[in-house]
């Protein structure tokens, strides 16, 4: 089973930031990344995100698989866009410079290439920040810090429980899978679809039902220890905002505003070099 990407403890200024700072950073960053199609803005963002990624001292090997997966999906996506709408670029940039013709409506145009280049750029401005967010944020502290955003603590604690039980549920999954394989349940791709469905059933059925039991135990345990007693609660792992937290938040807000202004300066979200 594939391994989930998880927090790895290091001591850089990025690791030391509050979880909520990184969440705000991540959300604003992806919002700007989603809104803008301005190549200049995207370029600067990509550069910045790579620098930050470098500063977080993340080992590339840790994320290599994921980067490949993202690359693969992106490739398919780019091809699909072209297959479905070879003239999307022309529609957006209002002009058409054919480089060469393939077949039917399928021309390779400068505008289409530029548009798809921007699509790729958009994805890659977010990926390093997302990876960094996961790898540098201590889950305990993150759940605690959501409170600062005014999010109800029940949501924060739900996330904490999810992260707490992922390894346990994964372990259950593997054990059940082995036991069922021993009974002759074939999980490979070789068998027909209905058989595959049945096999999957033999695993997820016990998994889901034992998890339902766990929900009852966990909620009893929580209640016996006073969860939900007060309108608020304190957090053992909460961190105080430091100077670098404030600076990071100010930085990301300012640069978001600037990025949006630059993007919409010429009337729409696209940068048109043509």
């Amino acid at each position, binding site marked *: 089973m594939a391994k989930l990407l998880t927090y790895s403890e290091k001591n850089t200024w990025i690791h030391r930031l509050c979880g909520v700072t990184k969440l705000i950073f991540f959300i604003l960053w992806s919002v700007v990344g989603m809104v803008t199609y301005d190549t200049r803005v995207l370029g600067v963002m990509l550069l910045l995100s790579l620098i930050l990624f470098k500063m977080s001292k993340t080992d590339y090997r840790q994320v290599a698989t994921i980067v490949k997966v993202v690359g693969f999906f992106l490739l398919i996506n780019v091809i699909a866009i072209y297959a479905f709408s070879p003239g999307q670029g022309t529609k957006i940039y209002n002009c058409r410079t054919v480089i060469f013709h393939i077949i039917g409506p399928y021309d390779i145009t400068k505008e289409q290439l530029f548009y798809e280049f921007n699509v790729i750029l958009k994805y890659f401005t977010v990926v390093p920040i997302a990876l960094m967010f996961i790898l540098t944020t201590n*889950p*305990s502290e993150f*759940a605690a810090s959501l409170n600062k955003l005014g999010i109800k603590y029940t949501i924060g604690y739900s996330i*904490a*429980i999810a*992260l*707490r039980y992922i*390894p*346990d549920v994964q372990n*259950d999954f593997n*054990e*059940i899978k*082995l*036991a*069922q*394989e*021993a*009974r*002759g*349940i*074939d999980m490979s791709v070789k068998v027909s679809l209905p058989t595959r469905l049945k*096999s999957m*059933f*033999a*695993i997820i*059925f*016990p*998994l889901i*039902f*034992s998890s339902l*039991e*766990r929900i009852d*135990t*966990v*909620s*009893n*345990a*929580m*209640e*016996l*220890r*006073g*969860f*939900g*007693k*007060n309108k*608020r*609660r*304190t*957090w*053992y*792992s*909460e961190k105080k905002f430091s100077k670098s937290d404030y600076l990071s938040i100010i930085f990301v807000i300012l640069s978001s505003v600037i990025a949006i202004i630059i993007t919409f300066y010429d009337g729409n979200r696209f940068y048109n070099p043509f």
Partner: protein
Amino acid sequence: MKNPIIQFENYTFKYRTQKEPTLKNINLTIYEGEKVLIVGPSGSGKSTLSNCINGLVPFSYKGDIKGKLTIKGKTPHKAGIFEMSQIVGTVLQDPDGQFVGLTVGEDIAFSLENDCVKQVEMKERVYQAAKTVGVHELLRHSPQELSGGQKQRVSMAGVMVVGCDILLFDEPLANLDPATGKYAIDLIDKIHNESKKTIIIIEHRLEDVLYRDVDRIVVVANGGIVADLTTDEILSSNILKEHGIREPLYISALKYAGCQLKKESKPSNLNKMELGAFQCAVRDWYQSVDIKEKENMNSEILKVSNLSFGYDDQVEVVSDISFSIKKGEMISIVGKNGAGKSTLSKLICGFQTPTKGMILYDGQDMISDSIKERAEKIGIVMQNPNQMISKSMIKEEVALGLIARGVAPEVIEKRVDDTLRICGLYQYRNWPIQALSFGQKKRVTIASILVLQPKILILDEPTAGQDFRHYTEIMEFLKKLNKEQGITIILITHDMHLMLEYTDRAIVIADGKLIEDNSSASVLTNRDIIEKASLKETSLYDLALRCDIDNPTTFVERFIQYDREVRSNG
């Protein structure tokens, strides 16, 4: 000291979903600073009793209450579960369900967080509580990095941090290996002595709890209290046996030897007990038991030689293990949690591939067999039946493995019916599985493996968490399979009773190595092995020593044989 802290007066409780009350007319008083053990078979109402004390009844489990319950001057169903949680701290049985924090520190702090305690104060209190139970160096660890015993200690710290007056332990020994269980009982004793808190322990493994003194034992059966006596009084009587609770083995031995136990002889503690004339009686009895010849089994069915395995190059989880098992044997593999027992069984079943060594089945190397092929020779039954059952009807569940193998429907029908008969489930064949008891569910999972007609059955902790009656039911069934069907049975366990009573031979694993392969009786009388493998010596050994019997191992063997005969004759 005689200040009542918990008082049940004519207390009756009926679950909303049930017709009959589960607790009937309970009258029980527990005094401040007492340490009380509550015992009773499954379904006796002892868990309901504990849920009444901590407030889960009636807030999580709805129902009707009659009579009166006062805890430290409060009535739980009026005070509410939150107020009760300040008075009663509960350590639940399931160490993973109880552990709700992402790290040790957070879990201990959980109650304080809910109480809005300031972080600085919280850290200090968490550290102190952690120190009491010896987990203060693990505060940043995740639950996955802890052993079962450590998780339980974290749970203890988590309730102690609140400063409750009453600590309630629900089956604290259920998931622990013997040595860790002993440590847990010691720790509870230490907490009791130092803090003067009222302690209530609910457990059916009586002998293990009595490793440290308790003030009183309350026996619950059929929803009522049948005894409320001191340990000495209870052990001198036959109350435990009558209600399906296992007596300490040395008590059984004394009774077999015809000793009339009285509370004056202090039977609660073997080392302090006044044996006097009993010594002679025990010696005479020992001489009188005949040792039967053991059946000679020759043909080897499984041979493991120089088996090694490691997840990476550095650490070997299983290291150079060799042993052989004869056809028709029933043996135990024992050792502490994480010693490599489960990995060993996974290697045998082909879930993992060994880095070195061979596994021979009937003289043939199994290395090239797939998991599916091995399953037809060696079946494995997991600890928790709920993790194996994937169908809603018994018949479908048992047939699953055959259907997956494309066996013809008529053959399936016949083999399923035959297997259900062997497992004593035939009369329930058209029942939905959820209508069965835990023991019956276990039998369904065994049946679903047996239907593939393996020659060897590996069972992982077949009786974990079961009371004496269910334990006996499951084990007698396995014995019957072994005797009548000739199936070789390998039990992976840390239950010392089980190993002594049902398996003649035990293989002991410690730190991935095989450290002993000998008769169960001699393993449990060998101090060196016991210590290395976190086992616990049997009280029979101490009894033998105290009675000046020169060969304690033989004494243990004779006792087991005699006990088997008595029990099989009803």
